[in-house]
Every structure is written in structure tokens, then in C-alpha cells.
């Protein structure tokens, strides 16, 4: 039986935890509430308040009606841009990371730990530091202001993480499996495809969630390398604020922010438990 009496120390702990949670959730609450209030209401009262009437029209306006950078199609085209960048970049970086992680963990070769070290060094380079090199690269290969350029950046930048995740998962796989398969006559890719990949779903789910969330939420590259119609939704949200600078439209802006955040939220809700499980799970039992 658990002790259900509340000692003073326990009450204090709950109090502190609740305060921290409230502080953390407050901005979200304000945005959610504002997304349901009309503009007039916000202007008359204050930024913080309960909706007097539910203004669902904010969502419709944010999705497809509002004008951003001279076109009035809401944030829908920018959501599509984000999807067109995030989905391929997530899939490609996860697959390449899995292959790289498999190579450095299960195939010993000269310099393997060096290569792994250099790849993961990418985790520690600040994003700002990489802006200039990427500018030069994108300019030289003609991908400035294209979605393909962003896919390239996110795929390559993502490799540090995906390789790290997969490598750490694969080191727990017994090497004898590889040796047995080599004697059976399987090569590098057949072993990966037939033996390693079927064991990988926990770590692939983790990697996909991680990559999807990060690429979707990424802002700096989006705003730096794309303009106008090519921007991902995170960058477009800023353009949206700029476009309505004359009359603040907090309701529509809030709705746009929430729509933009929905995909990552959904991914987390669907795969969150795999995420926690996958990060702690051993590879093969």
C-alpha cells in the first residue's frame, strides 16, 4: 500500500512543480486563447483574457485567407513547403544515418572511429557558424532560394544526429551476427537490408521523430536561404507578422502559430511513447 497522507514536504514539492508547469505552459495558453478571440476583443481588453465568443474564423483566415508577402492564400502554401522540405530530408537523413551508423559500429575498418568522431563533431558546431559555408555551397550549385537547397542542408546537417543515434543502437547488436552472415555469403548491403534493418524499428522511430521535429521547427536556414513563395512555414510566420504590422492581428497570428505547430505535435503524440522507449531500449534480446 502506498502512503497516501500528504506530508508538508510533499505539498511543497507539488506546489513548486505546479508553479513551474504553469509558468512553462502560460505562453501556450495565451496563444491558444488568443487564437479563439476576435481582433477587436483583444484590442479592447488585453493580450490575456478568456474568449467572450469563440472566433473559429481566425483559423480559416490563417489557413487560407490571409495575405502574406503579396499573396493572399494564408499559410497553406508555406505548410506545404515545410512538408516538402521536412519529409524528404527526414527520410534521407534517417536512411543515410542508419547506413553510416551500421558501418561504423559493425564493420571495423581503418579510421572508423575517426570518421565517426568527425561526423558527430557536427553536433557541436553552432548553426550560425555554418551559414556562410552553406551560402557559398548553395550559390555554387544553384540551389539558393529553393526547397531542394533546404532539403540538402537538413539532410547533411541531420547526419550527425542520425548517425549518432543509430550507431549507439547498433553497437549492442552482437558482432557474431555479421560474421555469420559473411560466412553465409551476404555482403554489406544485404546484411543491412535483411538482418540489421528489420531489427531497427525502435531507433528508426526515434530518429524520424527527432529529425521531423527539428527540421519542421527550423527557422534560421529557412529565413536565410529562402524568400517569398519558397519559405517554410516558420519563416513565413514572421513575414505574416510583418505584413500585418499596420493593424496587429493577434488572433489570426496565434491561429497561424498553432497550425504551424500541429504536425510536430501530432508526430509526438503518435510516436512519443516509442521515442522514450527507443532511447532506452537495448537492441536485441
Amino acid at each position, binding site marked *: 500500500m502506498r502512503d497516501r497522507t500528504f506530508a508538508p514536504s510533499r505539498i511543497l514539492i507539488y506546489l513548486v512543480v505546479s508553479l513551474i508547469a504553469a509558468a512553462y505552459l502560460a505562453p501556450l495558453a495565451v496563444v491558444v486563447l488568443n487564437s479563439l478571440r476576435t481582433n477587436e476583443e483583444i484590442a479592447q481588453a488585453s493580450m490575456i483574457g478568456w474568449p467572450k465568443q469563440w472566433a473559429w474564423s481566425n483559423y480559416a483566415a490563417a489557413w487560407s485567407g490571409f495575405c502574406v508577402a503579396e499573396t493572399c492564400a494564408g499559410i497553406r502554401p508555406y505548410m506545404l513547403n515545410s512538408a516538402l522540405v521536412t519529409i524528404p530530408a527526414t527520410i534521407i537523413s534517417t536512411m543515410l544515418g542508419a547506413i553510416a551508423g551500421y558501418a561504423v559500429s559493425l564493420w571495423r575498418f581503418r579510421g572508423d572511429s575517426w570518421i565517426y568522431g568527425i561526423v558527430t563533431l557536427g553536433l557541436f558546431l553552432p548553426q550560425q557558424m555554418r551559414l556562410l559555408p552553406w551560402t557559398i555551397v548553395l550559390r555554387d550549385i544553384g540551389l539558393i532560394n529553393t526547397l531542394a537547397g533546404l532539403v540538402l542542408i537538413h539532410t547533411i546537417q541531420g547526419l550527425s544526429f542520425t548517425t549518432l543515434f543509430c550507431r549507439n543502437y547498433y553497437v549492442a547488436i552482437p558482432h*557474431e551476427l555479421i560474421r*555469420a*552472415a*559473411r*560466412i*553465409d*555469403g551476404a555482403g554489406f548491403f544485404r546484411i543491412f537490408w535483411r*538482418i540489421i534493418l528489420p*531489427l531497427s524499428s525502435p531507433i528508426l522511430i526515434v530518429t524520424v521523430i527527432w529529425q521531423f521535429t527539428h527540421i519542421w521547427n527550423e527557422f534560421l536556414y529557412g529565413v536565410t536561404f529562402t524568400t517569398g513563395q519558397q519559405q517554410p512555414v516558420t519563416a513565413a510566420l514572421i513575414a505574416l507578422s510583418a505584413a500585418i504590422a499596420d493593424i496587429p492581428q493577434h488572433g489570426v497570428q496565434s491561429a497561424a502559430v498553432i497550425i504551424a505547430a500541429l504536425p510536430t505535435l501530432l508526430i509526438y503524440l503518435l510516436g512519443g511513447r516509442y521515442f522514450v522507449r527507443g532511447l532506452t531500449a537495448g537492441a536485441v534480446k
Partner: protein
Amino acid sequence: MAALSIRALSKRYANLEVLKGIDLDIESGEFTVLVGPSGCGKSTLLNIVAGLDRASDGTIEIGGRIVNDVPPKDRDIAMVFQSYALYPSMTVRQNITFGMECRHVPKAEQEKAVANVAKLLQIEPLLGRKPSQLSGGQRQRVAMGRALVRDPLLFLFDEPLSNLDAKLRVEMRMEIKRLHQRIGATIVYVTHDQVEAMTMATRIAVMHQGEVQQFADPDTVYRYPANLFVARFMGSPPMNTMRARLEAENGGPVVVIGAGRPDEVRLRLRGYDAAAPFVGREVVLGIRPECIAEGSRVFAGDAPIIVNAPVEMVEPTGAETIVLLRLGGEPAMARITPDIRPTPGASAAFALDTRRICLFDPETERLIA
């Protein structure tokens, strides 16, 4: 025909020499066991034979073909691993056919081969299961099935029984031996368990510190260990070894344990002519525990040699009684009949079988006679 010939094989990692010039010739149909303590190089040797590791020097010939630069899959070998290394996401059937699939064997032929092997190993009901649904013994069988289905020139076993519990290990040991007798395969089997080596091998290669200490049939290894290491490694409890002095008496050699002490033990040796140069010198005497028995035991042939010795400890095992005693002050173990239990602290009479004594050179540690 030699199924496997290893010539002057060595393996170095940076400044560590793991194998120091190995020479082995294994005939077709032989069951060769590589045995030695951990770190002796036996698994490295097996990996080099399999092609999973490269030799620093020397050559490997399988079926008369030098295979140093041949990849594992083309060496005509099959291997059974300690962890079984079954592919976790495949069924038993897929595990067995994976190799054939890689070699593009036609489907119908694969089916036939699986059916044969499954029948031989009695794993037909398991073919649709995943490895995680199998017991240790069943996994072991499937791992052997995967090797057998290839019908290779050479089978390599890397400590295949060490993950099984004691009872199953004995069963599988017999099964592997029976399998060898039935299909007459050439097997190289690595283990650290000298009992496995003794019971299964047609020839044993005892390895230590990267060298083959002795390569001979089990009886020879047991009866005439080439040196002190082999003497002490093979057999459980191990051979008793003790310092002794070799003297001459009436023209024949006599070995004296604890010379000069009031309780010195003098043992007359017959047929030890090779020991003649050591008369008057120190030697190391080796005597197996089963050659020291209760005083009433009669070892075939000669009149028994009876020694009174103080008993230090008694360990009844059920099948026999192990007695720790002192011969001329030197500790020794004896195996006596189970129903005799000498009193620790008192003296008791022991019969010695002197025909099976080994003498070693104390400097080179090699067998003299």
C-alpha cells in the same frame, strides 16, 4: 587428403603477438579440438581459418587450395558460433536458407536441403518459429542446421556449448559426436573445456600463449602430456605435479619425493630409460589423481606400491572421494572409491600406480619420460 593445412601462421596486433607460428595438418574426416585457456589464441586462429580475420604471416590451405585471400563465403566452410548468431528477424527456415539465398541456389533445391537437415536434427516442427521462441538447445540445433545445410569441406565450431546449462551441454556434446560419426565431416572445434576436448576429439591441439603445445589424439595428450602446461590443463582434477629427485638404485631409476625428510617417498620406476640422463638431478614428477587410490586397490600387473600419507581434506563427490594428502610433504590429490572416507588429520594407506608417472625437465618443463 589434408582438409586443412596451416603453415607458420602468425598474428600480430600492434605489439602484441597473438599467434606465434602455428603449424597444423588436419586430415579429412577428423574431429580436431583446439583447446586452451582464454586468451591462448584459439578463437583468433579459428577466425583466421574462417576468413573473418587476416593472418600477419603464413598460409592456410583448405582442401588443397591456399585461401589467404579468399573471402569467407568462398572458402567452402560453415561455422557455428557461441551465441548461435541466429538472425533474430528471420524464421528458422529463413535462417537455414539465408546462405543458399545468398548463393542463388534454386528454390526447389533449397526446400529439399532444408527438409533433409531438419529431419537429421529433428527440428521440423520448429521451422516456422523465430529464434526468440526457441530454447537454448533448439537454437543450438538450428545453428548446426544452418552449418550442415551448406555441406562444406570444413566445419568450424566456436565454443558452441558454453552458453548451455550443464545437463544440456552433455547431451549436445554426444549429439555433435554422433553427428560427426554419421556424416563423417571434418570439424575444427574450439573450446576452453578440456572435458569437451577429451570426449569429442579424434585429435586435440592444446594451445597456450599463441602456440600449439601438443597436437595428438586424446589418449596421448592425457597419458603423455608434452609439457607441464598440458599436464596441468588436461584432466580434472589436474595432474599432481611436484618437485622430486631422480636417483639410481640397483641399476634402475627411483624417484624420491621430499628427499631427506623422514617421510620421503621412494618410487621405483620401470620402463623409464629415457630418464637416465636425469639421474642425480631434480625433476618434476607428475601423477594423475586416479593413480593414487585407497590402499586396498590393486593396479593391474605389479605388486602394489603402498604409501602411508597424512590426509588433509576429504571431498566426497558421490561417484568417488577426492582426498587431499601429502606425499613426502608435497600436496597431492587422490581419487578413491566413494565409500572410503579417510579421517582428515590422520594417516592412511594409499596405493600408487607408478606405471603412469610422468617426469618433466624442471627447466624446459618438457616431458622426459
